[in-house]
């Protein structure tokens, strides 16, 4: 019954999306005059309710392990802890696509329910586009990936969930990432709506901004959480590998970052109109491309995709339809939208344009490096593109970007003279040069980490400079947001550079009692014991780690063996200090020592300041939240003030207009 209800809710949502699209389209032509245009908003809101309901019904089916549903039977197991039964809902293709469309409907519903600042015509067009996008993804779900499909005979036991996914990370990472991905659909629809009704104005930008910021905050948080998850779960201490799946989440983030800066310029200065629209299209296109890459199976093997191309070609068709359609509208309308206000190179707009171009270029590099191997694989040439390609190619654009990012916020809008900020320039430049010199004297490190360290410190100082000479109590909340986010980037960059420059590693086969030294820590294997969990058995090591002869801390890394599906995983154990993390993993048994005691593989890393990567990510996301809060509050205040002014003016007019006067000409 539950499954049928869920499926019915999905079909109803699809119908409502069609209603929303048609009603919205009517509204574009005739505005509020069309009697049919009033259905778009309610359709969006009810649709959001139904799609979310459908998702919760699937969640319930997973919670009670309803083995008559094919999806539950293939992906869940009755012996799993409840939390992993729940998170397992989106640990598979169909479930995660249902989450995707539920978030899509929810963001459309929120937009329709909350946003009353836009002109009605623009809103109608926006909702029509949102409905059009939704229909495509509903059909994808219903026609090729029905999550509620029943089995003819209920299974006796489920197939279980990939053990790597049986972690709290699965509860956080995909939902936040999806909210970010799909939240960008609102930016896409708003951009299209404004383009169709020729309303690319600062007011439109103010409406767009909180949605972009909101999606961007979730993306930032999702990527940060995902990176930390991979770091501790995979057991080798890596936090970013330029894996296509990782790139699929990075690309929308890069586009959204460029978009939110461009939106700010449009809101504040009425410049960069076409550029903002273009980035709005690009950001959601990257979300859809990411969905295609992850969900079509094209990454596992292009050939397996070619053998069973139904899902992949469906998303590819949607991708072509929406991106192509957006570009056609853009081409038709671009002529009618002027570029907007002008500005000089040495202005805040100038710096923002520079960095938007740099972000787009980095995006292009990531896109190229991700898609190229897939392209050649289709012609039976297999190449690998990894860190040795992405790091230097990305750095070509990232380094100038960080430099301009340090200076940009200090510049004034429209036009500025570099001489005005020469003290700040000299300060930041001398910090960067001093650090490069220091690190180069004390050690032999690769170029990129050294540059990264120096730029991180310079950027960290520069990020705080906009606060200099201001009364901190009177700094607007949105400015705090910017300072916080920029400082967060500096912190994260510092962590990345420090981790790649200073990490020390120790791999050894040790018998209980043996000790190893790494990065100022003494790590001693005390004992080994078997342990068991609800759906796994493991070898657990007791490891004593002490720093510089201090009190030892007990660590318990495990080497787990899950039995459904059978797969080994390493549960790393971590000690977090303010200046880094000690990362300990226990591996297989490795022979015996001279006296016949069994030895075990122990892998230990000391990673100085590695935690800064994720602290930085959190700071960036928090800066975004501050910014949303500050912007929306100021906007509402202004609107109220304007409304009160209008009322007063009307009252004055009513007092003055005792006699009939001719209507003022528009």
């Amino acid at each position: 019954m539950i499954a049928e209800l869920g499926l019915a809710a999905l079909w109803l949502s699809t119908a409502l999306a069609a209603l929303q699209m048609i009603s919205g389209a009517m509204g574009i032509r005739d505005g509020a005059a069309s009697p049919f245009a009033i259905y778009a908003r309610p359709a969006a809101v009810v649709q959001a309710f139904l799609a979310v309901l459908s998702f919760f019904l699937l969640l319930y089916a997973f919670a009670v392990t309803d083995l008559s549903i094919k999806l539950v039977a293939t992906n869940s197991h009755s012996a799993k802890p409840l939390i992993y039964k729940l998170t397992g809902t989106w640990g598979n293709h169909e479930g995660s696509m249902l989450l995707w469309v539920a978030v899509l409907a929810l963001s459309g519903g929120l937009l329709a329910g909350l946003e009353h600042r836009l002109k009605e015509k623009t809103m109608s067009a926006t909702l029509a586009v949102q409905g059009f996008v939704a229909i495509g993804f509903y059909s994808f779900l219903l026609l090729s990936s029905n999550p509620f499909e029943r089995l003819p005979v209920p299974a006796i036991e489920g197939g279980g969930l990939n053990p790597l996914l049986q972690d709290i990370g699965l509860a956080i990472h995909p939902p936040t990432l999806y909210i970010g991905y799909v939240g960008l659909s609102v930016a896409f629809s708003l951009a299209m709506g404004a383009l169709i009704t020729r309303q690319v104005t600062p007011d439109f930008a103010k409406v767009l901004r909180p949605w972009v910021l909101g999606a961007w905050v979730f993306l930032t948080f999702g990527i940060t959480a995902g990176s930390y998850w991979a770091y501790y779960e995979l057991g080798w201490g890596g936090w970013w590998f330029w894996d296509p799946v990782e790139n699929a989440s990075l690309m929308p983030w890069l586009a959204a970052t460029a978009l939110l800066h461009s939106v700010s310029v449009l809101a504040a200065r009425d410049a960069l109109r076409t550029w903002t629209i273009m980035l709005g299209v690009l950001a959601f296109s990257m979300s859809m491309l990411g969905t295609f890459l992850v969900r079509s199976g094209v990454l596992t093997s292009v050939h397996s995709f070619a053998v069973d191309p139904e899902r992949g070609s469906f998303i590819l068709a949607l991708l072509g339809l929406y991106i192509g359609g957006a570009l056609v509208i853009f081409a038709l309308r671009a002529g009618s939208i002027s570029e907007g206000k002008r500005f000089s190179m040495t202005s805040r707009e100038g710096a923002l344009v520079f960095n938007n171009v740099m972000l787009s270029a980095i995006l292009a590099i990531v896109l190229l490096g991700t898609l190229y191997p897939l392209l050649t694989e289709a012609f039976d040439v297999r190449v690998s593109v990894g860190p040795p390609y992405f790091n230097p190619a990305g750095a070509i654009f990232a380094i100038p970007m960080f430099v301009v990012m340090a200076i940009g916020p200090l510049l004034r809008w429209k036009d500025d003279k570099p001489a005005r900020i020469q003290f700040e320039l000299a300060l930041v430049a001398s910090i960067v040069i001093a650090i490069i010199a220091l690190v180069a004297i004390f050690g032999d490190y690769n170029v990129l980490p050294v540059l990264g360290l120096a730029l991180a410190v310079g950027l960290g100082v520069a990020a705080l400079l906009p606060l200099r000479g201001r009364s901190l109590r009177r700094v607007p909340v949105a400015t705090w947001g910017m300072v916080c986010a920029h400082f967060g980037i500096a912190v994260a960059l510092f962590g990345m550079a420090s981790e790649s420059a200073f990490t020390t590693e120790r791999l050894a086969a040790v018998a209980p009692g043996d000790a190893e030294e790494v990065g100022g820590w003494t790590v001693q294997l005390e004992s080994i014991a078997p342990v068991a969990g609800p759906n796994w058995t493991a070898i657990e090591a007791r490891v004593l780690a002490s720093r510089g002869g201090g009190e030892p801390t007990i660590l318990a890394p495990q080497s787990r063996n899950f039995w459904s599906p059978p797969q080994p995983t390493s549960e790393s154990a971590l000690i977090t200090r303010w200046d880094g993390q000690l990362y300990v993993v226990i591996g297989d048994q490795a022979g015996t020592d001279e006296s016949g005691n069994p030895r075990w593989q122990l892998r230990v890393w000391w990673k100085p300041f590695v935690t800064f990567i994720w602290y930085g990510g959190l700071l960036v996301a928090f800066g975004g939240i501050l910014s949303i809060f500050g912007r929306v509050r100021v906007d509402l205040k202004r609107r109220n003030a304007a409304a009160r002014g209008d009322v007063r003016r009307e009252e004055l007019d009513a007092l003055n207009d005792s006699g009939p006067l001719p209507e003022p000409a528009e």
Partner: protein
Amino acid sequence: MMRLLFALLALFIGPTLTMQQTFAQQAMPPAPYAYVQLEDPALEAEAAELMGTLRCLKCQSQSINDSDAPMAGDMRHQVRTRILAGESPEQIRSWLVERYGDYVSYEPEVSSTTWPLFAIPLLLLAVVGLVLMRRLGKRRSDAEEVN
């Protein structure tokens, strides 16, 4: 009698032998350097840097430095042994590429199949320069004209 003794011996020794063999398989990895570092930190650093850029062919998107797969272990052993024998990382990379194809190396080389990976960024650099010139360079003269 002797025959019986031999048979008994065989019965007795046989299992121990096979047991030893299986034990040896389990306990003594055929590739000792799979999980053990080289003594010389400079050589180990060279090996680690190389291993971070070689693909584990049996895994999905993992370098041999980040994988528990037996094949990754074997390859790590190969890399460390060859570094120890005095080969340069680039020699080892080309040896592996010769053996497994371009796919094994995460560091694409310019070749007839990979040239777009290098040509497109150069093109991108030109496009970026052009966009910035048009967006920022000209603006100044425009602004001056307007003034």
